[in-house]
């Protein structure tokens, strides 16, 4: 067969399909893990009826979604209504091609030298589906949910993008593979870019409409927000889109700040060269490391969901525009100064000190809750 055909069509498609299937399996597993883990945190069981430990719930849910009646409101704007659930799904799938799961070239579908920009561009289109869906349903709650998500996702796109700039400055590349290799040689980027990492973490929660930023679908306020009028597979598409984007964002934070498929400064001899030397096995090891890290961040989403109440809309905007964006800009400025002075090493120490302080604050013995109510008897 033509070699060019193999390089440019067959392999990429095959790799995309494999990545796609893996990610879809994670999405399905994530659904089960989230519900079981939430159950564990909330003194209840979670789904445990279908199959051992409720594992077959993963299959039962799609079957239910497919078999359910697909209701289209008669007053809905048909084209936009159908388009709504599809749009968030497409960028999520495409982005999977751009993320390096393991050492290139085998475990990276495509290596684009402006990969990061492409990912940002693609993920930001996901909001259209939600706005369209919310508007086309011809329901006031859906409309409010759609508008909220539009404002929220557009606002948080800014700190999301700005937080990445710091990483770009120290690594000097938009290519995700280069960024990972840089972290392998130096240290994981979350140390020198601790502030950026924090902003990225918060913004990615907001981008995904997850608690505490789940305002667009705030159940107790807007019934179900933008997907109130969606049923059956259309709703499943929205959910699939949301979970896929969660995985995309977790993959991004792992790639940008936590060393991708490498173990970075911990090493354990598993450098990219060694992994490459081991061939397919090495790639699998790299991919396993990558997905374990991704899983940890996915679990953090669940942890957040179990812990936090929901922000109010104006407070969300305040946090985005008045706190996150100035902080991200300041981070860029400070990083620039350090790079100009040639003191990159100092940033690592700042990161370590910050983490130490945070850990100290978290684990210091808590004072008894102050009695805030005046007691009169």
């Amino acid at each position, binding site marked *: 067969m033509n070699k060019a055909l193999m390089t440019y069509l067959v392999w990429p498609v095959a790799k995309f399909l494999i990545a796609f299937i893996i990610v879809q399996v994670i999405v399905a597993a994530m659904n089960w893990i989230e519900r079981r883990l939430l159950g564990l945190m909330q003194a209840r069981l979670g789904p445990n009826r279908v199959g051992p430990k409720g594992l077959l719930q993963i299959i039962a849910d799609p079957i239910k979604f497919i078999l359910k009646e697909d209701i289209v409101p008669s007053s809905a704007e048909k084209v936009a209504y159908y388009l709504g659930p599809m749009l968030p799904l497409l960028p999520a799938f495409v982005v999977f091609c751009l993320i390096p799961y393991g050492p290139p070239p085998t475990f990276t579908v495509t290596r684009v030298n402006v990969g990061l920009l492409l990912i940002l561009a693609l993920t930001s289109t996901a909001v259209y589906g939600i706005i369209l869906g919310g508007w086309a349903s011809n329901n006031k709650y859906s409309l409010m949910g759609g508008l909220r998500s539009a404002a929220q996702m557009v606002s948080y796109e800014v700190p999301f993008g700005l937080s990445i700039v710091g990483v770009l400055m120290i690594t000097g590349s938009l290519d995700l593979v280069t960024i990972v290799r840089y972290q392998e040689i130096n240290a994981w980027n979350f140390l020198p870019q601790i502030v950026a990492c924090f902003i990225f973490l918060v913004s990615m929660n907001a981008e995904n409409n997850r608690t505490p930023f789940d305002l667009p679908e705030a159940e107790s306020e807007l019934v179900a927000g933008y997907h109130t009028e969606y049923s059956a597979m259309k709703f499943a598409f929205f959910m699939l889109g949301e979970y896929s984007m969660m995985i995309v964002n977790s993959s991004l934070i792992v790639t940008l700040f936590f060393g991708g498929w490498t173990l970075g400064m911990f090493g354990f001899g598993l450098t990219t060269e060694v992994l490459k030397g081991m061939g397919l096995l090495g790639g699998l090891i790299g991919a396993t490391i990558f997905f374990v890290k991704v899983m940890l961040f996915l679990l953090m989403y669940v942890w957040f969901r179990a812990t*936090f109440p929901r922000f109010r809309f104006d407070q969300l905007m305040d946090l985005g525009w008045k706190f996150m964006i100035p902080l991200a800009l300041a981070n860029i400025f400070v990083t620039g100064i350090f790079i100009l002075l040639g003191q990159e090493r100092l940033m690592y120490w700042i990161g370590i000190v910050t983490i130490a302080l945070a850990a100290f604050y978290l684990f210091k013995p808590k004072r008894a809750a102050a009695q805030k109510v005046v007691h009169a008897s």
Partner: protein
Amino acid sequence: MFDVHEMEVNFGPQHPSTHGVLRVLLKVDGERIIDAKPVIGYLHRGTEKLFEHMAYPQCIPHTDRMDYVASATNNLGFVETVEKMMGVTKMIPRRAQLMRVMLSELQRISSHLLWLATHAIDIGAMTPFFYCFREREQVLDLFEAYCGARLTLNCMRIGGMPEDLPYGWLDDVEEFCAKFDAAVDEYESLLTNNRIWKRRTVGIGVLSPEEAIDWGITGPPLRGSGVEWDLRRAQPYECYPELEFDIPVGKNGDTYDRYLVRMAEMRQSNRILKQCIPLIKQTPEGDLKAKISKVIRPPEGEVYHSIESPKGELGYYIVSDGKTQNAYRCHVRPPSFVNLQALPAMAQGHLVSDLVALIGTIDIVLGEVDR
């Protein structure tokens, strides 16, 4: 200059966070509430009219169904009113009184737990919901052990109590009390100092003490505004005068203070329960009913009596013609109904998200609002 696009939104009657079938006609400008008008009556069952056609003891199960998450206090209010009419209040045996106090304090705990659960989930905190239901389940188990019912207890009779405490019940209560303070600490660890929770509740729906009194608000919302008014102290009934407890009072009258007041009240209820256990052990077993006639026919006249239900002042106004076994007129003053009045004033200028917090903080039960 600007064209204001007001939108009318029907908030309810079928909405996840209206706690039943409350309908609020919202006029919103974007997300800001211009006007909120509660529309009630979707759960109207004509309870007051039903009372006119039933003998007094038959009314007790119907009182259960008003504030259906706090039926013991509903029972208590009704039987006390009838007893007051008959002039037998002093004759109620001490054991029965203590049992009534214990049941109503347990009920207060369970009602406040349900309030916290729904209030928290309305504001988006999912986990306290399950934690609260874990403890509430234990309270309901205690109710079930006593009277067989978990929700609509029907657990009091005019002149006393229907049956004695089952064997080991007091030990179960003691066990529950021992663990309950730690459970409240657990809820508080998730919410009290949580910044998001504070941002969602501090300064929301502020009621000054004067406003609160003008609206006729009672219960935790009134105490949250800093007015020290608790009918257990102000108009003591049963054996409350000899029990030690504090009345928690807030300062700012906002949603956060009302939250703190209710959390403190749960602890105080627990304190009362702990005091009741040794007291009730001193009383003779089986001494449960006052010597009153089987046919209850109060003398002609009218009486108003109110108790402190978990939600505020629960009052019954009964008119008897002295000839029949049923009331000539029975009016109920439900705390939720009166407290709900303040909703439009409290919601003015807040956002839609706050409306949910406000409905939660008033702690309404629609069975009681509509009767």
